[in-house]
């Protein structure tokens, strides 16, 4: 790693402070005021708007296979979503996904 100790700590501290202010932004600014109905309607979809887009490239192009499509990881992702929709339970979905992943890795290699 070709960074000085000072540069490494600069990265850590600035990233820490910047991340804190992103998290504090609206919470700190808006405070007690009520948001208009249209804004609430948008915000209702925040989790389903962010997480699928965050995860899709990780599923399709996993870094462990240098970005090659990997059947075991694809099947595991499908199993996680299916378990989550059927059981409506996050733990069941995680266990289903990990179970499918290890089963496929063991079968396919």
């Amino acid at each position: 790693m070709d960074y000085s100790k000072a540069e490494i700590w600069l990265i850590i501290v600035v990233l820490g402070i910047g991340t804190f202010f992103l998290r504090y932004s609206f919470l700190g600014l808006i405070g007690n005021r009520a948001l208009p109905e249209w804004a609430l309607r948008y915000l209702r979809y925040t989790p389903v708007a962010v997480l699928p887009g965050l995860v899709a490239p990780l599923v399709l192009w996993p870094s462990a296979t240098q970005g090659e499509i990997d059947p075991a990881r694809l099947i595991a992702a499908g199993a996680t979503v299916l378990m989550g929709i059927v059981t409506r339970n996050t733990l069941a979905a995680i266990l289903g996904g990990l179970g499918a992943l290890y089963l496929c890795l063991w079968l396919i290699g």
Partner: protein
Amino acid sequence: MTDTPRLAPAYWRGFRHGLPFILVIVPFGLLFGVAGTEAGLDLAEVMGFSILVIAGASQFTAVQLMSDHASVIMVLLTSLAVNLRMAMYSASLAPHLGAAPGWQKSLISYFMVDQVYVMSIQDYEARPKQSLGQKMAYYAGVCTPLCPQWYVSTWVGAVIGKAIPPEFALDFAAPITFLAMLSPALRSIPHVAAAGVSVGVALALAWMPSGLGLLIAAGAAMATGAQVELWLNRKRAA
């Protein structure tokens, strides 16, 4: 604390809802410890990331870019872009927790990781009659089993990480968590439409600097969800 008895059930409900994520926080933290030391960071620096930043995806991004010899500015901009979604989380929590005193909002902000946010917002929407205190208690409950595990597992990963064989596929712990958090929320047509747009746009814009494409995808997906909800309401009214 006259209202302690009312807060305890909310706290413990949050605690129970947070517990399953230990299964994924631990591998994710281990993996960060391993990745950080393999990139050449010492133990204090690896722990500095997990304690001061406490945002896994951006920590991985930073370490990845540092391994690729990116400039300090690029490392910072890209890693912060990965965390832009947290401004949306902040906006989404504001109607529920905005009335809390400043020091409590600072603590909420520090611990605002994906899992804690998603579980909390789902609980607040499922139980809209909760007081501010109960919402705070639930939030603290979800954090309790999760956030300390992030520090501990990072430390373990940094110290013994290289002994974990790649067959354990720890790399896929994070995607599985995100999918497991999200799929129970696919409960209506607008939610499914928003998720579909999010995936489609994020993949189409994957060539953009990391984090930027996701931000555009999330904006398009939120607009889709809101618009589909409006259409369905109008159809029902007609």
